[in-house]
Each structure stands twice: as structure tokens, then as C-alpha cells.
């Protein structure tokens, strides 16, 4: 069954007809071309599909698009305020060599943006806990934590 949903995605209002069983990952990727939203497990285990829904990080692969009706969605594609200008979290990932294969990167950046936006300060151990829903096989998380420490207030 096709349902009409309205969402505010990366600053733009969209109206879409989607299958009621469709995951938000599939909608964002296949209907809106937002391919930064990665599919690593489609079961909510790896965090590669993380997006912000009303500012909160969500595994979009286990979130139905129909549930997002009326909500605001942000992906990595929507982070640049001006063309060519990276968001501070993105810039920190570049500067700290926190990117290797890059497959988990967009999801981790969205969690990083959520953490940065919280205005809270965190210890490295607390940051470990906050990103523990993301699997990364390349970096050992070391430089990702270094990047987050740069942009999140340190305790």
C-alpha cells in the first residue's frame, strides 16, 4: 500500500508516495538519492544508516518511512551551510585522519553532530559510550574519538 508522507529533509519539504513497509533508509537512498545513508546490516546493528530525526540519531534502516511523516530529517548531505564549507564535525574527521574506507563515516558524523549540538561536555570514555552503536572495522575508533574530542566540549 502506497502512503503519502511529508518530511522536511535537509532543509527542503518533500512529499513522497512510499510503500508502508518501506524503511527510511530505502526512501532516503532510492527516492531522494541521499546515498550517504549506508546499508551495512539492515538490522540496526552497525549504525551506518544513522540520520538525525528531529535532531536525534536514528538507525534509519529499522525506522519505517511512514513513521517519519511530519518530521525533520538531516543527513550528511544537508550539513554544509555553504558550498565547500564543511561542518566542524566533518572538518575534524578530515583533520584527525578519522576516515579510512569511509563507509561508516556519514553515520558516525551524524551521531557526532548530535553530540556536538547537545552542548554538553564529555570525557573520552563517555564519548566511547555515545558512539558504541556504530561499528567501524578500519580505525579502531581512535582517530574518530580524537576528532570528536576536538568538536565536543571536553570534561
Amino acid at each position, binding site marked *: 500500500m502506497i502512503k503519502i508522507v511529508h518530511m522536511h529533509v535537509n532543509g527542503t519539504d518533500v512529499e513522497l508516495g512510499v510503500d508502508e513497509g518501506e524503511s527510511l533508509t530505502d526512501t532516503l537512498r532510492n527516492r531522494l538519492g541521499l546515498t*550517504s545513508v549506508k*546499508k*551495512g546490516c539492515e538490522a540496526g*546493528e552497525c549504525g551506518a544508516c544513522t540520520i538525525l530525526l528531529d535532531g536525534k540519531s536514528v538507525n534509519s534502516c529499522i525506522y519505517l518511512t511512514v513513521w517519519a511523516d511530519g518530521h525533520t530529517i538531516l543527513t550528511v548531505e544537508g550539513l554544509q551551510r555553504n558550498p565547500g564549507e564543511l561542518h566542524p564535525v566533518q572538518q575534524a574527521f578530515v583533520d584527525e585522519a578519522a*576516515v579510512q574506507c569511509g563507509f561508516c563515516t556519514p553515520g558516525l558524523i551524524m551521531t557526532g553532530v548530535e553530540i556536538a549540538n547537545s552542548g554538553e561536555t564529555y570525557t573520552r570514555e563517555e564519548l566511547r559510550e555515545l558512539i558504541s552503536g556504530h561499528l567501524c572495522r578500519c580505525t579502531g575508533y581512535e582517530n574518530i574519538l580524537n576528532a570528536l574530542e576536538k568538536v565536543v566540549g571536553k570534561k
Partner: protein
Amino acid sequence: MGIGQGVQKTDAVQKVMGTAKFVEDMIPQNALHAKVFHSTVANGLVKSIDCSEAWKIPGVKAIITCFDVPNVPYITAGHPLSFDPNHDDVRDRLILSRRVRFFGDEIAAVAAVDPLTALKAVEAIRVEYEEYEPVFTPEDAIHAAHPVNPAYPTNELARLDFSISDSTVTWGKAAFSTEQNIAGREDLQSDHFSVPAVHAAHIENNACYAYMEGERMVVVTCNQVPFTTRRNIASALGIPLGRVKVIKPFLGGGFGNKQDTLYEPIAALLSQKLGGAPVALVMTREETFTCSRTRHAMDFYTALELDENNKMKKRAVRINSNGGAYAAHAHAIAAYAVTNYFQTYSADVVQIGESSTMYTNLPSAAAMRGYGIPQLAFAIESQMDDLAKQRGIDPIAFRKINMMKKGFLDPFDHFVVESYGLEACMDKGAEAVNWEKKRKEYDAFNQSSPIIKKGIGMAIFSYKTGVYPLQVENGACRIILNEDGTAQIQVGATDLGQGSDTVFAQIVSEILTIPESKLSVISAQDTDVTPYDAGAYASRQTYVSGGAVKKAALILKDKILARTAEVKHCAAEPLMLENEQIVQHAGEPPIASIAEIAAFVQYCNDHVLQTEQLTAEATYTCMSNTFAFGACFADVEVDVPLGKVRVNKIVAVHDSGTIINPKLAAAQVHGGVAMGVGYALSEQLQYDKKTGRMLNDNFLDYKIPTSMDVPEMETYFVETYEPSGPFGNKALGEPPLIPQAPAIRNAVLHATGIAINKLPLTPQRLVEAFISAGLIRAED
């Protein structure tokens, strides 16, 4: 910038912006989607397939079964072509299998308008099997009534046996055995070490799509070795190489698991059946676990006899490797391991190696970061600590007596160790963890602490760079200079995240003085236009492909200088490059800029000058090998009643020769440490003992380390200069993983006094060992 600088990764910005395109991001809108029917028995024969219900589902476009595929077995291993019959790969795969070899084997495939329709159709297919008794271990496999591959009646894929004396190897032929004595000798009684199958668990699942351009098959795939995959696809379909084009876009990690040809021939055959329509085949996470490749499970029987000075007299090893259902890399991995046993250390009197790889009815094992050496290092380095403990000698001192030294002549490949930082790595690590003080401090602490125990352990390794002389080691590079002094670099070597593209830009920058910001490395490989390279494996790319980049850059430099001499009417001889300019002597005012010369010789229309687009292309043949070295130190805490190991800190020290990019090199080590911690503590593929079905084919049940599981880490490099490397560099990609598991195991030994000889060190395994050793009493 150039060599030795922490240059920013060339693709970092694309990756943080989410614009880097991976295979699944590029699938055409109009593509059909394929799903595979997997066998539900581990050993058997497909008697019949009924697809009639599947065909009734609207949207199904094509169904192929094991009765429709070419009956010509092909190679899946990602190795370069070999003319040596001893090193040729085994042809034992058909696109779909009638003779089913593992639970999950590919029997049929459906292409439909979307993935869900394809899946529904797969579920409607009915298969009748003739079932045979499956075998899951090498011990069972040797006596199988129905061998996995009928061409190998004993299930033994291959073996490698030898003895070494005075650096001379004598090849022998032993029989499969799990006895404690090696080579039938009573004096070689062995210890037994065992490591399980584990998975690369890259976050991007294996994926590909295929379509036709006229008569030509195009396959876009996340594969580390596009040129070899092109050969394997052509061979599977029975079409000429020139009719196949393989494109490799950005890769979401591979670690060796994307070195083999997997579903590309299925997608290609479906596309062929559909007149060339695009067909996508993206593995689910569960399929990636079961149907790609695993790291080999291995059993080690190791015997070691010391003289009164703790010097090794006799040393022997037997390796039984579980190869799984298809040959893939056959015995290459166990052979790598058995030979390395006699490289890191050697004995004076007796050295005997035996090794066997067996077919079993489990998922196929093949390359994974370290290629057999992480398995071996667990056995070797565990045994070293057990013996040091027995003899009451410090584990570092014991290793130093017996380990490889500078000038070592490799008895197998006959090269001499020139760059050697092993001892310095150990010293640096010992200093960083405060080895002697901490060992004593923890000994004292453990005396009075029955519940929490602390330990510090270490392990070392040696690891070859590339695979010369077993296989050809070559690669090619093309550099195209633009009229504004910028350039494109094309390489067949593949970047899967490790940063080889960045390193290649640094090499060109070093030689041409053009900053990396003006150089574009074409990250995607397209076998139609990309120069050849064997691809990413064996930590070879900076060593071998880097040599090609250096060679091409030097040719281009010579061309630039020669054309400058011609245009500016001066001698080419003293000319040199400096800051993108051509100068006669260092520090002098420039004669011209690279950009001016490039523009002039390309566009000059004076009716005299022969114009030229300044480009260079070179193939580099590497005819050498060298060892990278390293030492790992692990500081752990063991909660005895819980059997829980907490790694507090890892210190990793590496000798990888010259470090081309310190930032990316350290990042490489971080990832290896994390993967090694997983190998040590939590990772293990589990199978139903009756059916062979994988039980933990997902990230919830297969535990790779999260950010909570990874310890604090310190990384150091002991820089040596390796004369055979293009800039003194040698292997770095795989080594960081190798010594972690034994270092952690040895730290647990130090903490508790208990030697665990089987990975991973799970709480269950530790508690059982602690109970039997009396550390935990039943009444507790």
C-alpha cells in the same frame, strides 16, 4: 609535501560529505535485482529444482539454476596469473553448484524488478537433494565417505612438508596427522594450539552489478583485485578477456575478503540471459558472513626443545588448516604460516614443518589481513611465553636469544634481511609500557588479589612484503600532466580505505615537486583504461605499486627536463625541479615553471615544435622481498570469577621501513589493534555441528569490537631503511593485527598463570580453565 609528511587523505572530504560512491550507490535506477537460492544441506547433490511457482510471481524476469550454467570450473582466488603449475590456483567453482558443498552454497538465482520480488521468488523455489554425511573438521574430512570435491578423494587440498638444515630446505611428504609427535619422532612431542574461523566483517557488504554494452560485459564490483576478477569472470562465462570490463569504485573495507571473485559471475550470467539488462546482486549481511570468505581455522602442533642456554635446538610444527568448501587460495595460506614458523625464530639442530589444508563442508576460507600469520603468531608466541615461564627467564630476553637477526637468509625465498628493526621495536615497546617495573608490580599485586589480576604480555612477528618470488610482483602507473601543472595519476592498485591513493600522490609530489593538492589520483579502477596492477593484498601496494608510481614519475620528470632544454635552448643535464619550477641549480631563479613547459609543448603552434601531451607510463617489476617487523605489548586486567579480560592498553611498535605518511600509518595500526583485540577476545564463527549452518551470521551475534571494547592505544614506528623499497618502505597494511592476540593471551598468562591455547579468550573458556586450575573453587 611528499614522503614522510602527514598529508591529508586524498578522499577524506568526499567521504565526510557522503559524495564518495560505493557500488550500491551507483546501481542504475532501472536495474533488476537478483537474489540467490542457498542450499539447506552442507554436502549433497541437487536431484531436481522446481521453479514453476517462482515463475508465477509477477516481476520475475529470469531464473538460472545449477542446471543452466557452463560446466567449466573456474578460479575464484584473487591471484595473478601463474605459469608455474605448483602455484596455479585450483579450478573448482561453477557459477551455481549442483554438487552442494556447504550450507549456503549457491544453487539458483532470480532476477526481478526489485529485491523483495526476487526474494519471494527464491523462497518459492523447491529443491530435492541427495544428501551426504557432511564433514566439518580436518580430522573428519580425511575419512569422508563423500569427499567435498570428488577430485580430491581424501579431502586433502594440498600439503607442504619439509625439513631445514643449514638454510637448505629439503622437501618431504608426510601424512595427515593429529598426533602429538611430529614427523613420527618420539623426541618431537608437541603442544596444541587452536584458532577458529573468523570473518573480515568489513562494513560494506559484498556487492556488484552487471550490464552489457553491446557485446561487452561490464561488472561494477567492490573487489580489491579488479584485473584478476576480470580474468575470473571471463573464465566463468567462457568469453574473451576483451569482452569484460570491471570497474571498482570506492570500497567499504575489504581486509582480503574482497580479493576473491564471488557473485560477479552470477550477476553477469543473469544480465547475459536478459539481453544485457543491468542486474544488481548485493549480499545481505548474513550472506556476506556465510558466502564470502573466512579466515582459516587452524590447529597447530608445535614442538620445541631448548639447550641449557635457552637456545632452540629442535623446532617442529604441524599445521592442519580448515579450507572449507571451495579451494579459493588452497594451501597458500597455511604454507605462508608454516614457513614463517622458521623465519621469526630458528633452531640449530632440527627444524621440521608439516602442513595440510583440507576441504570441509564449511564456508570457504581464504585471504584475511595477515594471511595465515595471525594464526601462526598465536601458536608461536604463546609457546614462547610458556617456555620462558618454564625456564624462569624473561620473555623478551628469551625471544632475543632465538629470534631472527639482521643478515638472516630466508631459507625459502633466499633473500637476506637488510633492514631490521625487530629488536628496537621490542626495546621501544618495553620502555613505553615500563615492562620490567610493571611485570614486578603486577606480580606483587596478584599475590594479594584473588579476584582481579593484572598482567602484561608481549608478542613479536615478522611478515613478508608482497609475494615475490612465489608469484610475479608487478604493477603499472600512468601520470598525465595538464597544461597548468596539475596532474592525474592512474594506478591499478586499489585503495580500500587504507590510503594507498594518498601515498601515491605523495610519491609523485616527492619527485615532481607538485603539491598533493594539485594531483588527482583516480581512485576508481576501470580495467579498460586503468594500467594493470595485481591489486591490494600481501601489504604490497606501497612497496610494489609505489615502485611503479616512482618509476612513472621519474620518466615524466626526465621528459619535462628534456623538453625544457629543447624549448629553452639549454643543456638538460644540470636541470632540476624545485617547487614546481625548472631550475639549473638549487636555489637559482627558475628557467620556467612545469606549467609553462607543459602548456607550451602541448599547444605551441610555431609550425616547428613537435607537440606532446606530457604523460608517462611505467610497469615496475619487483624482484625482492623483505620482512616488516613489530612488537605488541598488552596491559590487561582479568576478573577471575567472571572470566572477563579487560585490555587496558596496547602499545604497538612497528618497523615498516620508511614511514611515508605518519598520520595514515598510525591509523592503519589503530585498526589492526582493534581487529586483533576482536580476534583475541570475542570473534569466532559458530556452526551447527549437525548441519554446518552458520549460527552467528550477523553483527549482533558475531562480536567485532565496538568503541567500548577497544583499549587505549599507543603506536610507535622504528624507522629503518629498506633498500629494496621505493623509498625504503616495507609492509604495513596487514602487520598491525598479527601480534595482538598472543600478546593479550600472554598478558592473561602473566596475570593468572593460566595458559590458554585456544582463541578466542571468552569468559566461558577462561572460567573453565580457572576452575580446572583451582583459581575458582566450586564453593566460591
